[in-house]
């Protein structure tokens, strides 16, 4: 899949200019993380990838096709979008029904729906809860219910809006596994997140947004090495990275092994 934005601009009816000319290409299956402050335009940006929002200027091309050629419902076969607030998405009586809803809408064969149900309920660890009412789930389980109901539709691109919000250690592990599995299946995951630890653990391609524009776009190591630019967008690297930077390490490190390797390198000098 290839998502291409050409000087994309978006002005809301209220007059707020949320995107101010974004040029961006996202391609392949490498998971992408989009980070930046509240109000930087992250959600507005990704809502253009399946046409929930339409460009007020510029262009969005999905595999070369203009986003305006199709309706959001038609794009939903290719691009799945998980909303930030699960309560905005869930509306049926059981999780099973939530899972079946999207696939039925796009006319997925019964057989395939069954297969997907087994796979997705396993992946989201909701196998025992399929017949529960979504009200009986905790907020974090609800989140996995919404994630599952989108994966069910088997789109080529899946967008997660703040999946880490309110998750504990176990929840983050579950998410990690989902992102990894989707990548192995050849899907493109695009994730908005505030949790920098989660970002560096799971994403090599990082995009930093600031005030409606893309400030940085590239390999995570490169992005997190640009301390001054990050400051400008009020993004702070994860703790291990910060300690290494403040202790004067040259390389950007994300985990304890990298940290100690770089420590030894400096020690030798």
């Amino acid at each position, binding site marked *: 899949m290839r998502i291409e934005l050409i000087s994309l601009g978006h002005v809301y009816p209220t007059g707020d200019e949320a995107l101010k000319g974004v040029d961006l290409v996202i391609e392949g299956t490498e998971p992408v993380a989009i980070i930046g402050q509240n109000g930087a335009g992250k959600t507005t940006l990704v809502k253009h990838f399946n046409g929930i929002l339409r460009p007020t200027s510029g262009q969005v091309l999905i595999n070369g096709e203009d986003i305006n050629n199709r309706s959001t*419902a038609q794009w939903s076969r290719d691009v799945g979008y998980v909303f930030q607030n699960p309560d*905005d*998405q869930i*509306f049926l009586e059981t999780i099973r029904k939530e899972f079946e809803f*999207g696939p039925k809408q796009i006319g997925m064969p019964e057989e395939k729906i069954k297969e997907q149900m087994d796979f997705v309920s396993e992946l989201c660890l909701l196998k025992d809860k399929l017949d529960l009412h979504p009200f009986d789930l905790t907020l974090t389980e609800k989140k996995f219910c919404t994630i599952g109901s989108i994966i069910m539709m088997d789109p080529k691109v899946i967008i997660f809006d703040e999946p880490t919000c309110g998750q504990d250690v176990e929840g983050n592990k579950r998410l990690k596994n989902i992102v990894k599995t989707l990548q192995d299946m050849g899907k493109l995951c695009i994730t908005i997140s505030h949790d920098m630890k989660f970002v560096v653990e799971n994403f090599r391609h990082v995009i930093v947004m600031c005030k409606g524009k893309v400030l940085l776009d590239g390999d995570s190591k490169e992005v997190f090495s640009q301390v001054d630019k990050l400051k400008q967008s009020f993004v702070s690297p994860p703790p291990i990275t910060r300690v290494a930077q403040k202790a004067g390490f040259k390389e950007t490190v994300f985990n304890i092994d990298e940290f100690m390797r770089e420590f030894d390198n400096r020690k030798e000098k």
Partner: protein
Amino acid sequence: MAKAYNSYVKRDTFKENISPNVKIWPIFSYGLSAIIFPNIYLGLGLIVFLFILAFFSKLFKGFTKIMLGFGIPITLMLIFIHGFYGSKNETILYDFGPVQLGLEGVLHALKIVSSLLVFLGTFYIMNHTTYTGKLVASLTASGVNPKVGYLVLASLNVVPQMQRKLSVIQEAQTARGVETKGSLWHRFKVFVPLLGPVVLSSLTDAQERGMTLETRGFGIKNVKQTHYVEVFYTKTDKIIKYMLIGFFIVTLIITILMRLSVI
């Protein structure tokens, strides 16, 4: 994103500067008067008066729209029912062959419509010239139970909230392959299944909101509620209130006299 709480927009007209407390009165005074009066002329007169009032309150366009939008279909419907099938029909206005249009039925229908329109019209003007927060503040200040005040506010806010929720869920649905555009019938089919869940989730939200209110001191005993919105009650307000009560009493007396065939 969301719609405003109530339909109040500041327009700096005379009516806005009347205490909200007083503005409730016309609904009862005019409305009840129109109901009890033996013929339709008072009702019609009041409707004309309300149109003038709406004009000076800078509400003419919206007011006309709602009065005609509600008035025309309901008039036709009631004339059809009472005019053709009313039991009191004696004078035949027009003979359609299988059915006859009766004068008494038509008058009865017009009477109902005019009373309804008086209620609707006064309520519309009140709602559009009063800031709900102010209304409730002034009601509770004049001794109405805060719980009743809250009910008034909350019920006025329910509809815009549900509308908001509905539009968000609809957006989420399109992202799951539901086509929300298309024929009216199609849109209706997509829309209906959402109503249940939206109402249900509004109810659970309401429960959580109840929690919020109490943790913020709602219903505390032995404390007189105060308000951030300024409450006032002027001499003019008093005069207007008595005039409105007077209007109803006069109507009542005239009605009784007319019923007793004194005049």
